[in-house]
């Protein structure tokens, strides 16, 4: 019974993916597709019994999460949702899905979700990749653990000079002086993933200016407003 419910919840598919491919406003499409998909799903009240229990995201939550992810990955969001998962024991690779557990959102292979069902919710700590959390006021924040996912699918990237790497890892924003390279077509307030010059992902943030404006800026001008950096693994291990 339980397994059935989990799998049903986890396998929300987009109604027709082909149309999404050539749509320019892919994000909105995805969101609407997802929400409609969810609306079709019989929402078992038991599924939403508790915030603590691991469950699929509801409509509003999905929207929030996808909006955030879309900010960083753009069209690659499709990749994240559709790529086959190599984890788990199933012969044919399943897909990844999003799960909410103790206010944290996990991006995890369906196969793993199925096999985690026999673990009591109090005893389940984490599974797959933790990509973010819902704050007490109900907002969604991406956390540093999502970096791998974002870096692999990033649309906008910034590379740092070796000298400013450490500054960023201590939690500072990126200024023009520390900038090594930057991708084109960044608009202000887009999500950017920050790399070192040797392509090691360091964190992510929000672009303060567009690429064009960055060119004209003075060395102390703000380029990326930091949201998360890998230094957090050391600084606030307990909050992760």
């Amino acid at each position, binding site marked *: 019974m339980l397994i059935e419910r989990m799998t049903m919840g986890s396998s929300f598919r987009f109604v027709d993916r082909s149309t999404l491919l050539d749509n320019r406003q892919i994000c909105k499409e995805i969101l609407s597709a997802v929400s409609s998909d969810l609306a079709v799903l019989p929402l078992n009240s038991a599924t939403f019994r508790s915030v603590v229990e691991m469950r699929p995201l509801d409509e509003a939550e999905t929207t929030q999460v996808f909006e955030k992810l879309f900010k960083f990955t753009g069209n690659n969001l499709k990749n994240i949702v559709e790529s086959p998962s*190599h*984890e*788990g*024991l199933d012969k044919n690779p399943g897909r990844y899905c999003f799960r909410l557990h103790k206010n944290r959102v996990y991006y*995890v*292979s369906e*196969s*793993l979700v199925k*096999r*985690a069902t*026999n*673990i*009591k919710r109090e*005893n*389940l*700590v*984490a*599974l*797959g*990749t*933790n990509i973010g959390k819902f704050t007490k006021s109900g907002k969604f924040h991406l956390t*540093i*653990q999502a970096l*791998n996912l974002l870096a692999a699918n990033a649309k906008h990237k910034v590379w740092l000079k070796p000298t400013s*790497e*450490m500054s960023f*890892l201590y939690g500072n924003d990126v200024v023009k002086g520390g900038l090594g390279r930057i991708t084109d077509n960044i608009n202000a307030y887009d999500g950017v993933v920050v790399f*070192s010059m*040797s392509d*090691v*992902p*360091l964190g992510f943030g929000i672009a303060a200016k567009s690429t064009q404006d960055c060119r004209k800026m003075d060395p102390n001008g703000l380029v990326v407003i930091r949201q998360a950096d*890998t*230094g957090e*693994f*050391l600084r606030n*291990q*307990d909050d*992760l």
Partner: protein
Amino acid sequence: MVVKGKKLQKKPSRKEQSKEFLSVKSKKKNDILSESDMEDEEMEEQQSLDGDGGNSGSDLSSDGDDTFAGDVLQGSDDEEKGSGSDSDLDSDDSDVEKKSRAIDDEKEREEKEALDELQLNIKEQPDEFRLPTQEELEEEARGPPDLTGLKQRIKEVVRVLSNFSSLRQEGATRKQYIEQLKMDLGSYYGYNEFLISSLVEMFPPVELMELIEAFEKPRPITLRTNTLKTRRRDLAGVLLNRGINLDPLSKWSKVGLVVYDHQVPYGATPEYMAGHYMVQSASSFLPVMALAPQEKERVVDMAASPGGKTTYIAALMKNTGIIYANEMKEQRLTKLTSNLQRLGVTNTVVCSYDGRELPKVLGHNTADRVLLDAPCSGTGVISKDESVKTSKNAVDVQNCSRLQKELILAAIDMVDANSKSGGYVVYSTCSMMVIENEDVIDYALKKRDVKLVPCGLDFGRPGFVRFRERRFHPSLEKTRRFYPHVHNMDGFFVAKLKKMSNSKGVPAAASEVEEVVEEGSEIEPSTTENPEAEIPKPQRKEMLKKGNKSSTTNNGSLKRKNEEKPAPKEKRKKFKPLPREEISKAREDKRQALREAKKKATTKSASKKARPGV
């Protein structure tokens, strides 16, 4: 050349004088070759080369000096000097002369003293080291500890013990020496009685000293490359550029790196934070290598935090399959999850159970491989944690052992013997104690249908097959022990078990023969092992009644005992399940009754209290 000649001439003369002294002395003291003697001989040779070897040295006055100088070395300087010393007119020269004479005298004296001392030492050496008497020890105990004396005595005792028959003191037994050694080691290195005794039991004295010395030094820092994100060569290159001097770990590991020195903290580089490596002791590579997980398997890590081994397993499985990482202690969970996320491990389900409950949760006979890095007394990692030296006692270790026995049965129950690729359990501890290692494995071999297989590690010492009064299954030589003084890693134990069938209980054929031999030895330790179990039954019942408040902890341990107690004998096993249920039922009833009684009491008292107020 001239100067040299002068020196040469002067020196021998000085030496000659001392030699005179020495020769007299040495005659008295039966010719002892000392360094000064040797030197003198050399000097003599030099002299003979110079041409005045034939001189007897009887006339070593300044006159003699002068004449030689004139004779042999035609240097004008020498002549001048000689005349100066002769006439005593030149005050400067005579001063030099006096000074040199004073120096000569001093040298003589020093040499004499040295010789005397040597003599003394030599005299003492044949005079064998003898154990301190009771009074001396008491005397010593009163004063502050004399560390150099202690060290000296430890050395002596070890020397005597290494060649006991010829070096021992008349009438002293080996036991006396051992006792002395234990006491001295305890006070010199700060071990408690229990730990030092158990170490003494395991190692011969010379090796024991090496081990204890090794415990005083830190082990080398090692890193493990996270092959999910990078390669070892690339990582080494990057870290070298950052000022961390490192080398590949020994040839048995393809992912290990040893840090020699570092200008920047090796635990805070951008690569560390990006999860390219893990700081992990070399010994903790071993159980994972023994486990050898394959891709697309179902693996359980029963005590996972801080995740070094779990992430290694994930890396070997290339993030496929599924890993259940269990960690009971809540405060260690954050570290585990944070490390898993940092290293980019995605195939893990982290849960927090008591390891003994795991088979119920994850299912019997379901996993392909189980890693049990059991909680232990930590006696192998004294170099990391000094407190182990004093904090552990026999009861602690017994408790650990009991827990480990339960955990290993749980681990074996989880493994599926029919798994195509696996069916293995790897058991490891960072303890050196036999009852936490061989004893536990031996217990598992008796309780379940498993057999030991080689660990796949081509180094390490084989485990004990017999230890003092205990006799273990002969296949225990397939287990591996690692020591700080031999392998330069933490003290460690690794055993790999293959599950032969999913049936619970002892393998039929093998048990018959062994049981007869080993039953006696099995029962004895188990009774001594559980000091609490010796409490007579009625008393225990009382405890039960009393201990209702703290029922959670007390209850658990009692239950366990019930499970364990009827261990070796078949007869008891048969009627075991029924009484247990009954007992639990009875207990539940009793508890219920007590609870109600309590409730009544509290309500009564509350009402009583309330009344006067009203």
